[in-house]
């Protein structure tokens, strides 16, 4: 579903991604862990072209992200329409929720289908109501984001991303901005999605969640993927000394 090959990315002189390659199969849940500044969020943002990459090649669902291969083998920037279409098929959930504050929960969830997919408002409303019910917020559909707790806001944000019926969901530290007692309700929603067979890439510091839900755990440090294994392997017998050091500090 996702193939990233030899991705490089720099911010000015800072080389944030150094030759990162990763494959995510259909229905697979991949959890990326690693210290702050290791490039994991940047890598995630490259997958839906919120960041451009300097070198390498990424495809999602078989479609190249932001680049196009010409018949003669040259790689050029894709046109913007293709990028917008690709993004609409990739759901993204942010650390700071980023709900639209001038819209109610329901309007937030309807926004994508109505504005981007141009589906009829009544249909979008029905879909949005169903999704809010799925994340346990049917009774909050007319609340504005500011009236919701962090956990509720993040669940609305997940519903908003799901409303586009994406092929893949990307989670960028979805529980890092939450009070500890609200983390559980958001993780429960993500676990549900995993059970439904959604393909997901999750950047997180929640090791318990990674152990329980991940098919594959990826350890990133200093812009590189150092290790990539099933959770029972990486948590019990980490291969790389840097992984061992990182895990011993946080577990």
């Amino acid at each position, binding site marked *: 579903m996702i193939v990233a090959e030899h991705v490089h990315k720099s911010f000015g002189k800072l080389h944030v991604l150094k030759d990162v390659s990763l494959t995510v199969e259909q229905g697979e849940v991949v959890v990326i862990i690693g210290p702050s500044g290791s490039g994991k969020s940047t890598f995630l943002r490259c997958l839906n072209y919120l960041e451009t990459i300097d070198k390498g090649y990424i495809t999602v669902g078989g479609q190249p992200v932001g680049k196009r291969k010409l018949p003669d083998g040259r790689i050029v920037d894709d046109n913007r329409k293709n990028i*917008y279409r690709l*993004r609409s098929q990739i759901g993204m959930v942010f650390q700071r929720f980023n709900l*639209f504050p001038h819209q109610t929960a329901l309007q937030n969830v309807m926004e994508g289908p109505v504005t981007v997919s141009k589906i009829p408002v009544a249909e979008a409303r029905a879909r949005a109501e169903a999704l809010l019910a799925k994340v346990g917020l049917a009774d909050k559909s007319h609340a504005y984001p500011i009236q919701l707790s962090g956990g509720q806001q993040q669940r609305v944000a997940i519903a908003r991303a799901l409303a586009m019926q994406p092929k893949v969901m990307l989670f960028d530290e979805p529980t890092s901005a939450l009070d500890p007692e609200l983390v559980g309700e958001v993780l429960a929603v993500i676990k549900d999605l995993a059970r439904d067979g959604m393909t997901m890439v999750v950047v997180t510091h929640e090791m318990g969640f990674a152990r329980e839900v991940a098919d594959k755990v990826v350890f990133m440090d200093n812009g590189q993927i150092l290790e990539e294994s099933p959770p029972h392997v990486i948590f019990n017998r980490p291969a790389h000394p840097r992984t061992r050091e990182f895990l011993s500090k946080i577990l």
Partner: protein
Amino acid sequence: MNGRDFRALKYLMLLTGCKTLRIGPIDIEFLLVILPVLLKGALITIELTVLAIFFGTIIGLFVALMKISRFKILAAIGSFYTWVIRGIPLLVQLFILYYGLAQYLDIQLSPKAAAILGLSICGGAYIAEIIRAGIQSIDKGQMEAALSLGMSYAQAMRRVILPQAYRRLLPPMGNEFIALMKDTSLVSVITMVELMRSGILLNTTYFRSMEIYLTVGVIYLIMTTFFICIINRLEKRLAISDGE
């Protein structure tokens, strides 16, 4: 007050031994002579203000979008525009538009056209800065969230960024609109007959500066106060619909 009322009033004054009826330094009898002329001028002032706000806001929005554009050349043009227009006094700009263009390019704008053009161009530069600051004050996560849904940049601006910026823009825009209303008095120098010029013309006839200009000032004050009230109302309404 019609003629008969006025004669009755004068008779009353004669009886009470009061020579003239005054409000402060203003002789009421004289006020009744100049007021119709000044009010006509005030109507023109309102017309100029409304048109300048309308065109100035359109210019301002475009220049603001240029200034935050990722196309360097557009951003440079936008910055150049606000730099030049905000750095040259409006009075000088009006002289260039009205007298300068006529002499150099043989383009003789009517006073009204020159006035509206000058005020819109100038207002646009200030409004552009207000809108740019408003847009940039919106958290950049909002744009990312909109883009990640698959919106184009234009859709994200229209549906997500501008509706939020709009609420923050209102107070500084209100100030700018009031400044623009007062700045319309400057177009009197290019022979545009609005409130200020009406006052000047009356003064060349009557030489009663205090009474005339004080009245002009009070009319401006009433108009700006009215304007402030409208903006305050709008702000309150938005605060309610914000759900905050």
